[in-house]
């Protein structure tokens, strides 16, 4: 199982703050995104260009490996400070 979180405008557009996904093997973030996109149109914003991803609290590229137990977060460019 992996935990997936969404923040900011992305969370609002997806109407989802977090979800758990059954998970086995070692795939990449891209594979995880693909799996969500297959669930339907509502997940489309995940494929937009400016979406950032963090695996276990560290921003990484979409080809990063995801392992069972990981926490994946998707969010728009940050605007704090």
């Amino acid at each position, binding site marked *: 199982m992996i935990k997936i979180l969404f923040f900011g405008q992305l969370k*609002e557009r997806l109407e989802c703050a977090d979800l758990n996904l059954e998970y086995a093997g070692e795939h990449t973030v891209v594979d995880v995104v693909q799996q969500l996109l297959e669930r339907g149109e509502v997940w489309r914003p995940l494929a937009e260009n400016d979406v950032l991803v963090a695996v276990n*609290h*560290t921003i990484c590229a979409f080809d990063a490996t995801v392992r069972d137990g990981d926490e994946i*977060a998707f*969010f728009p460019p940050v*605007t*704090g*400070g």
Partner: protein
Amino acid sequence: MIVIQPEDFDHGEQYKRLRARCDSDGAIVTFTGLVRDFCHHGRVSTITLEHYPGMAEKSLMQICAQARKRWELGEVTVIHRVGELSAHEQIVFVGVTSKHRQAAFEAAEFIMDYLKTLAPFWKKETTNHGPHWVDAKASDQVAFEKW
């Protein structure tokens, strides 16, 4: 010291704390970011700051660690507020002490530039025309890349 909290902070107290701990350092630089009362959508009444708990703290710690690698620093304080804030309220505090003023200036600016691009916080502004999420600024990316 890194703090993420909804509560306001007392700038004077933070300065005193930095000064009390800075031993032989001769330079203290502080930066404070306030909620601006105007954006291109109109007059801002409040902003709401969302963050990614866990990652936000870790991100700020990493940024401060990077600053310490680049400059010889004494104390480093970063406070970032979350939740709903009114116009003119304090959002963020960065305080740095160093033996040398250039190091203190550069480190404080570096921490802010990195925070603006890497730390997981998101701002939603509420104006007289309703609420909207703040867009990331190209100038913040430029500032980030200069280091």
